[in-house]
């Protein structure tokens, strides 16, 4: 009846001794009068899959963007591999995002005019890979995510689940250190969501990619190693369980 451990300070208890890959302290961010983040501490450890859940409008996306160096918090710091993201300029953060991070969103992130495989080559080309090599690697990633047969199709010719898997392939193609995913299964049914999540976690674990994942869906969150609950811009619960 009472096997579950009662957790103390949620975000700090996860530290487990090792230095976290991403470390955020005292994050505060307001949009006008809306306080989206109200003093958040987070640690993300290398190789883990962390889910962020919480009610709509609670600040999950905002937190993700702050962690990824997309938004700059009003207060607080984010350190990635002991480098302060919050002290870098936009160009520096852009470079970091391009080199170290991958992103998957809920929908509509594929360039409509490019075939699936061309879409996957985009971040590789941005990173300076030769076109031929980029195409080869893109095919490998499509294969790994089980959508190789659709590589020549345009996004409009793909199902939602296929398009999401192409998006995951694109995000992972550069073998980022951290993959940020905001509702990657948000518009998919149970089975499609399961396929995308399986592919995503398998691929991430295979390359040692750390994953930060926002989701409303408990079954999607169940693919994570631990869960963080955000409410009203604060973390009300988090840390590894089980």
């Amino acid at each position, binding site marked *: 009846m009472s096997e579950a451990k009662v957790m103390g300070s949620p975000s700090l208890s996860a530290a487990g001794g090792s230095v976290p890959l991403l470390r955020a302290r005292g994050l505060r961010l307001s949009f006008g009068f809306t306080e989206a983040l109200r003093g958040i501490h987070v640690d993300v450890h290398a190789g883990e899959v962390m889910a962020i859940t919480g009610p709509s409008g609670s600040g999950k996306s905002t937190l993700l963007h702050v962690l990824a160096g997309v938004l700059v918090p009003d207060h607080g710091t984010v350190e990635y591999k002991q480098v302060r993201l919050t002290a870098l300029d936009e160009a520096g953060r852009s*470079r970091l995002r391009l080199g170290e991070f991958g992103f998957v969103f809920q929908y509509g992130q594929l360039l409509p005019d490019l075939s699936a495989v061309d879409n996957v080559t985009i971040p590789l080309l941005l990173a300076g890979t030769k*076109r031929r090599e980029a195409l080869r690697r893109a095919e490998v990633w499509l294969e790994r995510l089980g959508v190789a047969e659709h590589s020549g199709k345009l996004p409009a010719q793909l199902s939602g689940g296929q398009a999401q898997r192409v998006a995951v392939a694109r995000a992972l193609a550069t073998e980022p250190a951290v993959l940020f995913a905001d509702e990657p299964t948000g518009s998919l049914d149970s089975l499609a969501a399961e396929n995308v999540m399986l592919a995503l976690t398998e691929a991430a674990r295979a390359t040692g990619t750390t994953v930060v994942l926002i989701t409303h869906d408990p079954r999607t969150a169940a693919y994570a190693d631990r869960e963080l609950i955000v409410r009203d811009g604060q973390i009300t619960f988090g840390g590894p369980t089980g």
Partner: protein
Amino acid sequence: MSVFSLARLVTAGDRGARIRLAGMAAGVAVGVALLLLLWGAYDALASRAERSTWTTLSAGVSPQQVSDPAAAAPSDDTVLASSTPDYFMGRTITRIDVAASPGSTVAVPGVGRAPLAGTYYASPALAALIDAHPADELGARYGTRAGVIGHAGLASPDSLVVVTGTAAGDLNPSRGGSGADESQFGVWSVAGFGGAAYPNVAYRTVAIIGAIAILLPVLILVGVVTRLGAAERAERFATLRLIGATPRRVADIAAAETGVTSLAGAFAGALSAWLLSPIAARIEVGDGRFFRTDLTVAPFTVIAVVAGVVAVSTAVAWWRTAHAGIGPLGVSREQSERRPAAFAVVPLIAGTTLMLGVTLTSVLGSPLYGVEMLLVLGFLLISLGLVTSGPVLTYWVAHLAARGVRGTAGVIAMNRIRQHPRATFRAVSGLVAAVFMVSVFAAAVTTVTAQSAQADGSDRLAKSTVLAYLATRPTEADAAITQASRVAHTPGVTVAAIGHHHPEEGVVFAASDAARLGLPVPAGADHVQVASDYFEGGPPVVSATAAPDTAPAILLIATDGTASSTERARTAVLRSGVRLALPPATRTELAASALQTTANRYAGLTGLGMLVATIISAVSLAVSTTAAILDRKRVLGLLRLTGMPVSTLRRVILAETALPLATVFALCIGLGFLAAWCVVAGLTEGRRTVSWPDRSYFLALAASLLLAAAAVAGTFRTAHKNTEISVTRYE
């Protein structure tokens, strides 16, 4: 619910939609305003040509050339007149000498009854010039002023025209001009003066082609702005389809929206055209500025233009929406454009073949019937063909290029073009049309300015020396010498020497005169022969010769080189009574007048046309480039979020503009020159041709490319702002 209230419902409250509609209305307004102003200008060119060409006496009522005016006294219903050019400080004055009977009923345009002998009527601009200078430089040439020529006899407020009254006996039948159109010189008896809008059908053709040239970019602009935000609109329409609207109903809504918007825009455009006409009238075209009334378009025309623009844009919006296949799934399932078909290049090939064929048969001496209309048709086909074949060519090139590109921007841009060849080409189509038109005009104008006065040099005839070619009769030879010596006493004149015809070639001067004129005189010669080429600016070829027994051929008046002295010398010659064959003029004035034709009038407008076409096309380019970015706002925003640098975004925009432009750029220039040659050579049966355009053409090309670059650079900011992280909805 009516279509209109539905249309309002789907646009009201949505800021993006309102901005889109405002942009559409503004674009239509600019298009309509320019259209009306240019229409007015064309109309004005015709009516002012009609007003100014009454000075071409052969176009008058029952014209008859008179060889002995003293014997052919004017009756009450005919006058004797001669029309000659006169020069002052580099400007050309049209001078009409009229001899009328005291009871004459023949009206002179802008004057009324012909002036009495010894008096004159001057145009306001000339009157001002006369008042601003000493009489011995200008005013004394014409006598006493009797009045000012009215509007009806003038092409432009800037026209320099003088009508002098004279006795029939003083009219000089051997007097000529040096232009190509000899028939208008000499003395004519006319029963009335009349003008023609177009001197001949060739000019009418040129005018029609010019109108097409300016209309095309305007139409492209209207086409571009009415497509603004097509993707965003398609999304809204998809929602309507989803809740049960039929495709027809959606098309009706699109038509209503476009109709109302373009109506508002067209009204605004008509109003601005009216407000801008006084400013437009200040622009000098050909003969000078316009009278404001010339630029005012008839109310019926305004209504027709407004109704036409609204009807066409509404119909096109309806047709486009009905055939866009907007399903309930909307843009997420958006099909890419149909692949452009190869037959779209047919009009281009047909037009080129037609123009070439017509011109070649004409040049080879067996012109087809209706050359003009065939040329206009060919020109229309080429213009249309450039626009229709652009997407095909762009698609082919992008297809080839897509394999070779390396960078991110290249991959994004080439694939965009491959999927949307029409949309991407449409963005540059205005510029393409402008480059084509600019090339046509620039090449056609070379026919007007092909020759220019020869170079100056210390041994050449000074440009300030006045040449008066004489028509002295044998009986008047002695009188001419006295008259010449009188001219020699004019202040500022250094030498006034009479030369006689040489039996074979050139002019014979007394050796002393030649030496004073600065010519190299062979030692011991009494008289020297000077080759004619010298008087046109050529090198002096002087040889000793025998004393002449021929009539005086030329009166050469060297001056101290100031402009006033030249004008004083000219006035003195005109007043001396010496019988002239040509108006006294410097060699540069003579050379210039030889080139002056009515074509100049239209050439002036081409400069304006180029400017307008280029500006419009830059606007269309900016508008469509912005639209292309806004349509992909979300995806590009997300890519920037993942770390794509802004420079890549810029390169995408650049590549999407540069490729279609580069594809057809050389083609436009080539076809432009070809079309110009066809029009010029075809209409003159090969008597005229075109040559390399001058520097201003390359400047114009460079300017249009620069303007295009500026338009694209202007969209960078919008692109940057609209893909910013804060505006991208990323859930």
